């Protein structure tokens, strides 16, 4: 698939979203160093084309669920980055009022059902969202993002089975970055991910996750099937993970040469620039302007987050229930 199917404006928007995710993550990594972001976080840098390519095929009211590495999916689904940055800083103005943090960012207004601290836990929840869509007749579809590590959790297989027997409008997007935390996927995974899904008669598509256009095409086929009542699809998306498992991971299990090559050869942003250049739809200078605008937006988000108050202490015990006593 080529860049030609998009308008100039669409291409710029696609680039802007990918660039926003990249710079959001790089900036978060930098801010972690100041000590102002509590705890740790899992960065999505390198995988941007997967989230953006898939979410580009979705309606505003479609559902997604995410993983511990969830910032990219949230941004791609339209969650406000000011709120997200404030959430990472643990502030009251955060997406979840500062009570969720990086691993629990959710925004139901955007159909974002939550990042998740438990590997593969989003898969059955997303089946439930797809069941709601099906029974309420809304025409919505649901996307469960998961990593290669999630494929070895039993609930993933259970979710494949449930999605197929109930013919749910769902797409499982397996973002395979080659590592479950610090362990190479090849060391811990038997067989093939696509064959696992195919054994449930779920159609699969294997995709290069550094090529937004391939992801977009594959997601389009899957979303169309889901919306038409054709049931689940599984996308196996191969992506690079630029950072270690989490922000504090020195990532010594990969060699410096490997990591340099990964960034050089597997960069969805470079790839995108190359592809649009070939069709002469967008000037590189225009993309540079986007870069500057993104930079300013992220600066603003960080400044606002840092200036925002922490949640009031009373928030400690609110929102546990809708109504308890």
């Amino acid at each position: 698939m080529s860049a030609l199917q998009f308008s100039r404006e669409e291409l710029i928007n696609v680039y802007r979203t990918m660039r926003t995710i990249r710079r959001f993550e790089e900036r978060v990594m930098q801010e972690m160093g100041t000590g102002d972001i509590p705890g740790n976080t899992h960065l999505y840098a390198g995988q941007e084309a997967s989230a953006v390519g898939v979410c580009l095929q979705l309606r505003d009211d479609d559902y997604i669920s995410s993983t511990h590495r969830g910032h990219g999916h949230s941004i791609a689904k339209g969650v406000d980055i000011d709120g997200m940055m404030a959430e990472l800083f643990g502030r009251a103005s955060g997406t979840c009022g500062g009570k969720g943090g990086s691993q629990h960012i959710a925004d139901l207004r955007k159909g974002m059902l939550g990042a998740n601290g438990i590997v593969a836990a989003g898969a059955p929840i997303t089946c439930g969202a797809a069941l709601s869509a099906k029974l309420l007749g809304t025409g919505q579809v649901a996307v469960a993002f998961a990593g290669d590590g999630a494929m070895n959790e039993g609930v993933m297989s259970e979710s494949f089975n449930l999605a197929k027997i109930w013919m749910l409008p769902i797409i499982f997007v397996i973002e395979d970055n080659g590592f479950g935390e610090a362990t190479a996927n090849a060391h811990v995974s038997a067989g093939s991910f696509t064959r696992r899904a195919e054994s449930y008669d779920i159609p699969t598509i294997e995709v290069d996750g550094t090529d937004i256009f391939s992801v977009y095409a594959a997601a389009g086929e899957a979303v169309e099937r889901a919306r038409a009542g054709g049931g689940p699809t599984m996308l196996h998306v191969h992506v690079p993970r630029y950072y270690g498992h989490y922000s504090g991971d020195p990532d010594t299990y990969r060699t410096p040469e490997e990591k340099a090559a990964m960034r050089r050869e597997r960069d969805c942003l470079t790839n995108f620039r190359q592809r649009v250049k070939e069709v002469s739809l967008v000037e590189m200078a225009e993309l540079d302007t986007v870069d500057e605008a993104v930079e300013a937006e992220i600066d603003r988000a960080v400044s606002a987050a840092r200036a925002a108050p922490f949640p009031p202490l009373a928030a400690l015990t609110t929102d546990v229930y809708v109504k308890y006593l």
Partner: protein
Amino acid sequence: MAQKSFRQALNEALHFEMGRDPRVIMMGEDLTGGAGANGVKDAWGGPFGVTRGLLDAFGPERIRDTPISEAAFIGAAAGAALTGLRPIAEIMFVDFAGVCLDQIMNQAAKFRYMFGGRAKTPLVIRATYGAGSRSGSQHTQALYPIFTHIPGLKVVIPSTPYDAKGLLLQAIRDDDPVIFLEHKMLYDTVGEVPDGAYTIPFGEARVARDGKDVLIVAIGRMVQVAEEAARKLAAEGISACIIDPRTTSPLDEDTLLEFTETIGRVVIVDEANPRCSVAADISALLADKCFDALKAPIKLVTAPHAPVPYAPNLEDAYIPSADAVAKAATSIIKR
């Protein structure tokens, strides 16, 4: 008022609420029994006959027989609750929560809090619990302490047919995740149950028997045991009051404290294992908040710190008995 079984009371609540609210759906293993086979439909009406007739009334889209796959369907129920449905999911035996606890404990219970109050999860998880059916260690536990411990969950344990219906209707209409535990040895018990709909608020204990000499706090099936103990005590001239908290989360602390203040002697009877139990929790509450009103130590009559055994004589010895409760009461009155 009509006499109905505990089972029928639950069945009426399910029929009523599914008829009233099209967003209510049910999912679980063998809710009907016979799905996909050529013989009788609704062959089981649920493993204990609680869901009989719902398939005919509401059809297979809303009454969903699931694979034996609790992690998937409890998770799906949680996700459906988050996105506009009001699912009732059934875990056939609460012991099976072991394979889907993540979806209950880390997901459904915490959505609202983690999402900053911007979500609600109107989910009911029904499950059978309790010993007495000669079913060994994995189909018999009283695991409500585990759920009671988890903020975000509500835990309901009815002891009578009347309460079963009213509490289940409340559970389905509630906007928070509710664990609704049905003691399998109570299904055939009979009591007065109105034909119409009514709800019983959570966090309101029931005074099951008035009395002045000793307060017996009992949950679920243990209310029957407490009542039998009270009859034995009455024969000895001791007047026992019985309080059934009905929900362990929220817990009606006010009623427990008020009666403890008045009576001053307390026995807590609990079918769960004793460590970190509801009995231990209530005992701590009373010791903390009304120590000065206590005329004697609080006595706990519980199952031992052991799994539920299979051999009938051992299982009978496992379950707190009326004799043990009466003996505990007598020991703190005659000291």
